[in-house]
């Protein structure tokens, strides 16, 4: 428990304009130094969870139940000042679109300086500048001084995302939350950026919460994975177990949809919106759907640290239950 850097407990998030919740009863944790994947389709609530870890909600949104602990501090109870100090210093954030994330008219160097000055007693001004430059070098920017003097519009997508990564690393946070960090980039640089991000995090002993819809990326970089659908956790556990022998029908469908070489592309059952109510959101698409799926699915522990929320598991696949 105390080893967990971030612990999300029964989190529900809602946006005021709709009665239904964007995220329901989500619990997960990331240990110090752990690389954790958070996967799901668009609208599954993965970004909402990621931002809740920084105590941020989109306009009109807010926590409706449960809590988020970061390093033992309950974010909902933390005074605004300490919450702000925590962002950047304990948890760094990387978003989808590096062009949007960097300020259009403030120079890159000044943006580093602003982050430094927002957190007390981190570094001196000169030391900070050279630290920013060396960070930029670490993330693979050849002429850091020139970039520090420049603006976003002069950078390519890959360079801009490198700058964003450097900004997120700047205050040596203990966890990086990366929300689809490569969606906005060309395919050719996606791998480079992910290698860079995970490499830097490993070197610095930081944890990483990687939000993505790409199972291949999760399989390659993460130790543990949490699968979200319709705002609920479907299955969570070690990547090797969950992605190799999935026990939840949704995860099965997800893994089956990954094309392998020499195999024609297959589609899952006709795409449909998740059902948002007390029951399982996947039941309309689920091949193992049964009448009790309209009630809340139970959490079934398959092995240590591996859980699935499904009515169908303990009866159909008993082989894993201890």
């Amino acid at each position: 428990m105390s080893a967990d850097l971030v612990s999300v407990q029964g989190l529900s998030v809602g946006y005021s304009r709709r009665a239904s919740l964007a995220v329901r009863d989500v619990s997960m944790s990331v240990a110090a130094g752990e690389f954790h994947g958070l996967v799901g389709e668009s609208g599954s609530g993965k970004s909402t969870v990621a931002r809740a870890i920084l105590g941020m909600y989109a306009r009109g949104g807010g926590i409706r139940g449960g809590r988020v602990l970061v390093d033992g501090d309950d974010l909902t109870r933390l005074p605004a000042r300490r919450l702000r100090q925590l962002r950047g210093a304990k948890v760094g954030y990387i978003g989808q679109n590096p062009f949007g994330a960097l300020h259009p008219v403030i120079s890159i160097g000044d943006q580093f300086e602003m982050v430094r000055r927002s957190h007390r007693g981190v570094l001196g001004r000169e030391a900070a500048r050279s630290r920013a430059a060396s960070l930029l070098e670490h993330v693979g920017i050849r002429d850091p001084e020139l970039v520090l003097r420049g603006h976003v519009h002069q950078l390519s997508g890959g360079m801009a995302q490198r700058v964003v990564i450097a900004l997120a690393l700047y205050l040596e946070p203990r966890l990086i939350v990366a929300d689809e960090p490569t969606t906005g980039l060309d395919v050719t640089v996606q791998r480079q950026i992910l290698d860079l991000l995970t490499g830097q995090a490993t070197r610095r002993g930081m944890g990483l919460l990687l939000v993505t819809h790409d199972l291949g990326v999760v399989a390659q970089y993460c130790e543990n994975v949490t699968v979200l659908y319709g705002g609920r956790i479907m299955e969570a556990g070690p990547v090797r177990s969950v992605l190799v022998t999935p026990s939840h029908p949704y995860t099965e469908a997800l893994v089956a949809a990954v094309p392998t070489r020499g195999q024609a592309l297959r589609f899952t059952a006709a795409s449909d919106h998740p059902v948002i109510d007390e029951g399982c959101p996947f039941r309309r698409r689920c091949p193992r759907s049964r009448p009790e799926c309209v009630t809340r699915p139970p959490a079934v522990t398959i092995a240590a640290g591996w859980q699935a929320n499904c009515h169908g598991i303990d009866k159909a696949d008993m082989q894993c239950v201890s």
Partner: protein
Amino acid sequence: MTLMGNEHTPVRCARHQIKTARQDPLRPEATRQRIPPLARFIAMRILMLPVSVFVIISASFFLMSLLPGDIARALLGPVATPSQVARVNSELGLNQPIFVRYWRYISDVAHGSLGSSYYTGRAIVKELSSRLPATIELVVPALAIAILLGITLGAIGAYYTRRRPDTLARFGLTVIQSVPDFLLGLLLILVCFSWLNILPGPEGQLSFADSPPPHVTGMYVIDALLAGDGSTAVSAIRHLVLPAVTLGVVYSATLGRTARALLGNALTSEYTQFGRACGLPEFRLVRNAVLASRTGLLTYTAVLIASIIGGDAVVEIVFSWNGVGQYAVQSMLRQDLPAVEGFVIVVGTLTVVVYLLLDLASALLDPRIRFDVSRRS
């Protein structure tokens, strides 16, 4: 690896986002054309200035000349005989073909003359230049009030979108937007002069008891201060308060609405999100939003300046303020066409100059333009 559900392919997304991220919503054409080097840009704009002024002069002349109405009859009154009307028409040159009059007017303007008043016979240039300082003295503090109040209300509304302070700010802006300037002026006079008697009534720039300071700039507050005449300066400032507040408050409405929209976009943008995720304090996020939308704010400030220069006439009349606006309206009422033409030319030229300065300022402030230029030169 694959993509789930109905996500776009990454390549498509990347292109789309680069396009949207680089587009400046206020100047869409700037992205399409290649931006010329700053020097050429400035030179082009300055060369265009005389052309614009020429268009304004011509427009002013033709609009006034082609308006319906019989000038001579209006000057002489309804009982004038036809021969009197004919004499006045020939004295004023009104019986000549319009292009002859146009040519004469243009050559006069080129020699620095805007003609003379039908009514007083004095040169229009003199009439206008003696009144322009009073207008400037009124408009400058009014602008300061309008900009401060407008951006503050807009920023409050944008930051607290759909919460209590936003409702209040929007309510305030709706009230401001809905009150006619002359009504607000009169109500302020009622409260501050008639009831509380803390400020002077509508008697112009100074009381009848005050003697005007020696003429330097024509602006009484500055002239009195230059002359070291403290009591006249205080009186001039006290006379300035109500008209300047009236104008400033009324003109803050449009800027406030624009500021709310611009800052609202900036405050929900990804760079604000990212700044917040980096732990920047909220006041800095607001400041960054103002910085990011400064070209837009500047544009609307320029529109504000342009509209207040000609638009303060009614307030000048309410407060008996002896400026060019009041003069123009009075001239209009007695059909003193050269005076009105002169006013239109002066105000139109000022407007064009304000827009020129705006273009130069936004070119200098926008790093996208500034850097492209410095790299090449």
